[in-house]
């Protein structure tokens, strides 16, 4: 169960400013049914003073999404457009007495809807769907851009991929973009992205590197299986891409020794190290 503050529960149970302003001066939309939450914000603006005189919302979402929307309308009312544009997701969360980390994206949605509504007013009132400004979409599942991630990281001092997911949803579904999010974090936080050296082909390894690579696979993949039948395998020699292996224990006199060498040991070494590796029985 989420640890919601009394403020969140109050705004969820008694949401302020529900509905839609007829002939609104600005309409901002964000999210969709697919994402699991969505917000439609309408505002009435005084043309002389640019003060937001009224704001109403409609939200599909969880308790914190509804509470964030409700709080957003309360905060926006009475402010000029320029003042309102300064409202951040953290301001919304603070006004609610904080949100659970996993729910911070609800407050981000509020900030984005307000951005879109202001833009809509400036463009003459036609509804604006909040869009990531940068073309580069990092998270395809939730349509989150690199720019949005950088903004969330900077604003909220995020340090982990999990943080980014909580704030922006990026990486929360298939998770394929987590590596990219980490790189963005590294860049923003000044960390150096770890460069993984590409695996060299077996023939280019030194003799010591070759021995280590083969031993590692023997120890992790091959011996545990052979051990189950009371046997094991030892590395005897190396020449070029040919690895000489001796079967020991129960495997040594086994009728299937050749099959073990070729179908299991050689296949495993080829899978784990390099397809060019061949194995001979010593």
């Amino acid at each position, binding site marked *: 169960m*989420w640890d919601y503050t009394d403020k969140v*529960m109050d705004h*969820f149970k008694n*949401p302020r400013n*529900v509905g839609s302003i007829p002939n609104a001066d600005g309409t901002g*939309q964000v999210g969709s*049914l*697919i994402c*699991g*939450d*969505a*917000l*439609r914000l309408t505002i009435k603006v005084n043309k002389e003073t640019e003060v937001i005189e009224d704001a109403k919302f*409609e*939200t*599909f*979402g*969880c*308790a*914190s*999404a*509804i509470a964030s929307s409700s709080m957003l309308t309360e905060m926006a009312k009475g402010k000029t457009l320029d003042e309102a544009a300064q409202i951040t997701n953290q301001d919304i969360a603070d006004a609610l007495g904080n949100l659970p980390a*996993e*729910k911070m*994206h609800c407050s981000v949605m509020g900030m984005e809807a307000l951005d879109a509504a202001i833009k809509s007013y400036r463009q003459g009132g036609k509804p604006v769907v909040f869009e990531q400004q940068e073309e580069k979409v990092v998270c395809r*599942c*939730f349509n989150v851009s690199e720019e949005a991630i950088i903004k969330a990281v900077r604003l909220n001092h995020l340090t982990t991929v999990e943080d980014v*997911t909580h704030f922006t*949803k990026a990486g*929360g*579904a298939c998770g394929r973009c987590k590596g990219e999010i980490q790189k963005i974090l590294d860049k923003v936080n000044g960390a150096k992205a770890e460069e993984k050296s590409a695996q060299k082909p077996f023939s280019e390894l030194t003799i010591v590197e070759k021995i280590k690579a083969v031993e590692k696979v023997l120890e992790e993949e091959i011996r*545990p*299986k052979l051990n*189950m039948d009371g046997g094991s395998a030892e590395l005897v020699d190396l020449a070029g891409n040919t690895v000489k292996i001796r079967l020991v224990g129960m495997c040594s006199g086994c009728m299937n020794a050749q099959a073990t060498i070729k179908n*299991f040991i050689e296949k495993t070494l080829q*899978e784990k190290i390099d397809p060019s590796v061949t194995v001979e029985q010593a």
Partner: protein
Amino acid sequence: MKEIYLDNNATTRCYPQVVEVMLPYFSEKYGNASSMHTFGGENRRVIDAARLQVASLVNAAYADEIIFTSCATESNDSVLFSAAEAFPDKKHIITSAVEHPAVLEPCRVLESRGWRVDYIRVDENGRFDIEELKNVIDDQTALVSVMWANNETGTIFPIKEIAQIAHAHGALFHTDAVQAIGKVPVDVQAAGVDMLSLSAHKFHGPKGVGALYVRRGVRFVPYLVGGHQEKARRAGTENVPYIVGIGKAAELAQKRLANGVTNQIAALRDRLEQGIVAQIPDVKINGDVHNRVPNTTNISFGYVEGESILMYLNDFGICASSGSACTSGSLEPSHVLRAMKVPFEFAHGSIRFSLSDENTQADIDTVLKELPPIIARLRKISPFSKENA
């Protein structure tokens, strides 16, 4: 306020009769069952009696085919990793797309270790695709693991048929029967099951104890090592009070199945479901309504979000659960509903009610009275419902 507890697929109330038989084994008869003195050694007999009770519940041929574990997750993990260890010459596992994470996650670990895993699809009613199973199974398949009944929709899978197909290809068959035990008859011999996982707290026993049925003759490599307990198939000092508890819970579950209590639960479930359908527009029942466990209904309310519904139900002491993204802490709706291709506008608004024999008609009528205004209220806030009005 009295709770109206309709979340029995999450966990059940441990019956007082169960707690009662457990209590002496904490502070009075606390001996170690492996000890050479009578004080401890007597507890061996107590454990064996519980083993017999659980064996009887699933109709195992021999009591020693039951291994006590800490939970069904441990049972499932043991099965998956055992199969991988015991069949080093095979490289293929088959399961379903709608398993509990306790099966899906170890499968993903095995995938990272080079195993091939096929996740059999279900149709829009949550029914298992037996033809796909026939297509993907081959002689490289070490294990087929398919749940007896789904935890979210209650849909029952054709276990006997799946087991036959597995055996025809030389594969073992395991079933996670956590959601079937105590709700429908489970007979490991009739169904041809090689291994089966169960958990006490889903049938009115204590949390923290489960069991694994392993048919005699099935290759099994232990998951927990470091002791001779459970015939060296699950090391660790036996949790005597909890084992006594699962035994008693098994005995009571068998009695309930025999005296038709499950029919009464089904009648209440149907009353709830029909009442909701009659009163609330834009709802959808998820799962195979013709073939599901008697206590479960999974209902989607279009255009509203599940967590919000639960929070309002909570005000009336009504306990249920949701497959919505927001409730799980993840951001996607339930993998079960997505596998069934439930449209997003319904998937996010799914509520699971799961009953037990302790529910009354008054409970159901309270839900039927309180739920419609909640849905109406949330739909009024939602930007989507009007588009369809």
